[in-house]
């Protein structure tokens, strides 16, 4: 199944790193990239990504705020919050929005596990 995935991170390098993993794991997927939450919201007005990978610590709206907005506008989107900040509070807020929590630095193996879950969930829809 070819899916569309949205990658939001203020660090270009972090986005490049995710893209590198995606090229290895799912080269046929469509990738959308945004450098901040506002850009991500603009992009998702006219598109409907199946999966979103959101950095937590960004200037402006952070990844949790963005997840809340995306959850409202795209209820079926599979969302993962990526952060080196593993405070229970952050993880709990992600889980309350049915978003997965992935630790930074994000490994290809951890990303692969989340994407497999996302594909399974999408196939059951």
């Amino acid at each position: 199944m070819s899916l569309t995935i949205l990658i939001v991170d203020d660090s270009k390098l972090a986005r490049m790193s995710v893209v590198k993993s995606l090229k290895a794991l799912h080269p046929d997927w469509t990738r959308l990239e945004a450098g901040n939450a506002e850009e991500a919201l603009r992009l998702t007005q006219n598109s409907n990504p199946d999966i979103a990978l959101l950095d937590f610590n960004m200037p402006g709206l952070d990844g949790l705020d963005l997840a809340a907005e995306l959850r409202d506008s795209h209820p079926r989107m599979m969302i993962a919050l990526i952060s080196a900040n593993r405070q229970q509070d952050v993880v709990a807020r992600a889980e309350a929005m049915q978003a997965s929590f992935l630790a930074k630095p994000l490994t290809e193996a951890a990303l692969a596990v989340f994407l497999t879950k996302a594909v399974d969930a999408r196939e059951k829809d």
Partner: protein
Amino acid sequence: MNASTPIHLSELELDALTELVNLGISQAAGDLAMMVRQEVVLSVPRVALVGRDEAIHVLGGAERKDLVAVHQVFEGDIIGRALLIFPEAKSLELVRAVVGGDLSFEDIIELEQEALSETGNVILNGCLGTIANELERSLKISLPEVLHGQSADLFELDPPPESGDTVMLIYIHFAVRERDIDGHIAMLLDMPSLAVLKDLLTAYIRRVAGDVQT
């Protein structure tokens, strides 16, 4: 290399450095949260490489504020010193935020030194340790030392190591128990260390993003 040739980081190298600092600060926030049993918000909006004079100006302002700093020296492939710097006026605020509870003024004063050095240690070690790990190098980090003075004093510390003229200046925002405290982390690197850092960042970028133009 000629000592007077400044070393510039490319946009992607600075991005990589910011990302590493972000990783380190995020981990430090988690450690601090465990220490104070409260959520700690610690964000890093900006990382800049500036000259020593500019750093002194940014930190001291026109009014030459009194500052408090936690200072640690690091040694390895990269040699330098790291300082966590707050306005002196915010120092007791920081101690209250970290210690919590209804402490008397006398208790706060007594705890100031210890709380500052412990907090600084967690933040600076988190930052330096993460950067070193991700760059696959090891750093020896000295014990924290609390300093008081104006910004120019903080950049005139005795060598060794030679503190150099380039300052990696990181603005951080720290919030815990409804208290908001803005501060800076300053890392002073000598010229050879900055050149090594640039090479290590290039290698790091290649590792995480594949072969790209830096």
